[in-house]
């Protein structure tokens, strides 16, 4: 399809393991956003890319979180030494530009045991 694709849909990891979450944005979309959605809450901003440049990472909760988009298309959100509080749904969104509505993927549900 032509939507935002995220993988895996579900990820279970043991505390202390590293995880990598992938986002394939809509082709041609310049802007890419990552959000964290805890159970029963609204999504919270993590980071924003314009092409390959990470323009805002103010929402990343700690230095264990790292995001990249090296070629301005696919993005990866990496969490090192996972903790139980990292359990959440991670949503990726893309838009043609930062001034236009965002299109969301179905998210990756991360569970840390």
């Amino acid at each position, binding site marked *: 399809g032509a939507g*935002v694709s995220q993988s895996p849909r579900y990820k279970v990891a043991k505390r202390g393991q590293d995880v990598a979450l992938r986002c394939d944005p809509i082709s041609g979309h310049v*802007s890419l*956003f990552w*959000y964290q959605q805890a159970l*029963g*809450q*609204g*999504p*919270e*901003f993590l980071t*924003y890319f314009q092409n390959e440049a990470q*323009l*805002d990472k103010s929402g990343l909760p700690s230095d264990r979180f790292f995001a990249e988009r090296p070629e301005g298309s696919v993005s990866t959100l990496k969490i090192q030494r996972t903790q139980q509080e990292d359990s959440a749904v991670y*949503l990726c*969104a893309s*838009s043609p*530009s*930062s*001034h236009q*509505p*965002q*299109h*969301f*993927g*179905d*998210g990756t*549900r991360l569970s840390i045991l």
Partner: protein
Amino acid sequence: AQSVTQLDSHVSVSEGTPVLLRCNYSSSYSPSLFWYVQHPNKGLQLLLKYTSAATLVKGINGFEAEFKKSETSFHLTKPSAHMSDAAEYFCVVSDMVANAGKSTFGDGTTLTVKP
């Protein structure tokens, strides 16, 4: 700074009756406002957006919202609820000038539709 308050965490209506989901926002500049719907285990789908054009905005599936600057509100309405409208709804503010598209979400309103 920008923020969003969704005044009701849960709304329950009967099928065929009107829906009102309330949202108040705070923004330093001229905001863009959005409503998204989220069905279980799915991503968010855009219902409608306000970006400083007409204050009454029509969206998909019969939803509409009115931007009231004096009240800093952007309430979502629908004349007649369908069972398929049962979902989580998020009001979103985005200050395109100050925050370059960074969006702030409300905590969501769960809409239940009774037969």
